[in-house]
């Protein structure tokens, strides 16, 4: 349980953000300059805000009203930055050991796959290796809360793909709450339990990742091209023709072969612009995924597009269609029809363990 309420006036910018989040990964999302990093700095105690109340799992880190403020070194916050910030005069082992109050480093080293790097110097590591060591170092300090401020932003796509699975394992196995700053919705869709959307220093939306990402009202904050709903599904079968069949609340989904085993729970991000709508069940069409849906929300954008939220079973799906189509098809609340999703449109990076 994470409770954050911070007010701080910068020259020309006021941070005034408050949210509560359950355990798991809380993603702070927003454009550059929205105040995400300042908020994280306040949580870490690196920034001294004008007013704040910050609680992690019942421990008060700061409460300006009560005149209470823990020093940075007493907060037990693991802070991972965009750059690894490893100590250059220590080898990997000594870096990992630095914040450890005691105990074994074995499990963390194993989880992050850095066992072979222990005797190396930081400048002999690749960017991805260094960042994994930095995550390990923060984790080994036995933090109450792990702050990850754009930990992947400085890495290329291959390195990102190398680290993301470790972050998923961290979420599922380490049990440390995480506050994750990112402006990549793809990362958030994979990792977040809770999403906190920020704009101009304020929190504009807090909620479960599935709820926030499938909310048409949040799409302008995310950027319409990045909009896409998250659905959870279970892998039912890997078929011989290279397709994987998933069962979700809205029906079966057919996707290009996934790595996870049968029975695994996955989260799938379906981009709004990859969803087509049809009034009648489409026939003679190459797309494999045709889900019966009911329209729940329709949101007019400023441009030629319309963002539509649909209910497929209990799953929410977002679709982005043109206003012209919306009018021609008579889209309105409780409209019933079909969502059409091309299997190959769902990229591998949009599928992750649930």
């Amino acid at each position: 349980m994470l409770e954050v309420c911070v007010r701080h006036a910068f020259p020309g910018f006021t941070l005034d953000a408050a949210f509560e989040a359950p355990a798991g990964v809380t993603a702070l999302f927003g454009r550059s300059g929205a105040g995400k990093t300042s908020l994280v700095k306040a949580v870490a105690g690196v920034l001294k805000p004008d007013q704040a109340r910050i609680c992690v799992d019942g421990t008060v880190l700061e409460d300006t009203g009560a005149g209470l403020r823990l020093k940075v070194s007493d907060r037990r916050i693991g802070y991972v930055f965009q750059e690894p910030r490893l100590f250059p005069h220590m080898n990997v082992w000594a870096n990992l050991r630095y914040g450890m109050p005691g105990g074994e480093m074995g499990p963390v080293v194993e989880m992050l796959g850095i066992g072979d790097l222990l005797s190396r110097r930081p400048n002999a590591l690749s960017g991805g290796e260094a960042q994994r060591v930095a995550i390990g170092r923060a984790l080994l300090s036995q933090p109450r809360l792990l702050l990850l401020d754009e930990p992947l932003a400085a890495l290329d796509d291959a390195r990102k793909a190398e680290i993301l699975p470790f972050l998923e394992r961290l979420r599922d196995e380490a049990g440390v709450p995480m506050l994750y700053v990112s402006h990549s919705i793809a990362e958030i869709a994979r990792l977040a339990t809770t999403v906190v959307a920020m704009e101009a220093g304020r929190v504009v939306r807090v909620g479960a990742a599935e709820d926030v990402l499938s909310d048409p009202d949040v799409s302008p904050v995310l950027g319409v091209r990045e909009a896409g709903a998250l659905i959870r599904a279970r892998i039912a079968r890997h078929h011989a023709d290279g397709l994987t069949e998933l069962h979700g609340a809205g029906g079966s989904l057919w996707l290009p072969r996934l790595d996870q085993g049968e029975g695994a729970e996955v989260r799938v991000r379906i981009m709004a612009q990859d969803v087509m709508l049809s009034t009648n069940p489409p026939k003679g069409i190459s797309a494999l995924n045709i889900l019966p849906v009911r329209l729940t929300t329709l949101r007019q954008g400023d441009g030629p597009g319309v963002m539509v939220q649909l209910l497929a079973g209990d799953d929410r799906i977002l679709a982005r269609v043109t206003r012209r189509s919306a009018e021609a098809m008579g889209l309105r609340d409780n409209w019933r029809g079909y969502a059409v999703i091309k299997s190959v449109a769902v990229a591998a990076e949009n599928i992750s363990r649930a």
Partner: protein
Amino acid sequence: MSGWLGPAEWQAVALSLRVALVATLFSLPFGIAVAYILARYRFPGHALLNGLVHLPLILPPVVTGYLLLLSFGPQAALGGLLESLGLGVAFRWTGAALAAALMAFPLMVRAIRLTLEAVDPKLEEVAGTLGASRLRVFMTITLPLILPGILTGAVLAFAKAMGEFGATITFVSNIPGETRTVPSAIYAFLQVPAGEGAAWRLVIVSVVVAMGALLVSELLARRVAARIGGRDA
């Protein structure tokens, strides 16, 4: 070497080494502290402190020596107090060390400050988030990372202290065996008709010590830098 150098020359060399070593070792903690304050903090009086530290570099050494005499001489309040505690420095070798330390201080602070400014404060910040107190951050992160600068600063200060003349002779005079360091001895030898040979030998010693100090500092700094930024341990 004592065979090659006459007893008076040897005395001067030994004294100079002692004076320079004491001056360097005692001023080092202050040098690190002042460099840290100048590099890491901005406060009213920053420019003044910086100016004060650098003053001995710019002032005529005789002026520095005279100011020392005014402060630490037996007639001065501070000097009298130290004298009564048995710690008087006027006309003693310890006074020569004080003068040398003061004259060498700007060089030491400069060298340390330069490396301090090259240390990324973000490393200290992350150490804090890992639970390290400010003292532990300084001892385990800052200090090891500025070691090359500390070595360079110390060796430069040592070499400078070996060669200090103006402030020393003004403050503590030129007493054989007590305050007659190598430069003072060279000066004294040059005042007497038969002293040129001795003066030359001391000149050679001075050149060798200065060059040796610079070479050692360069080597040490390179070694440390390689250890700090080096590849696999």
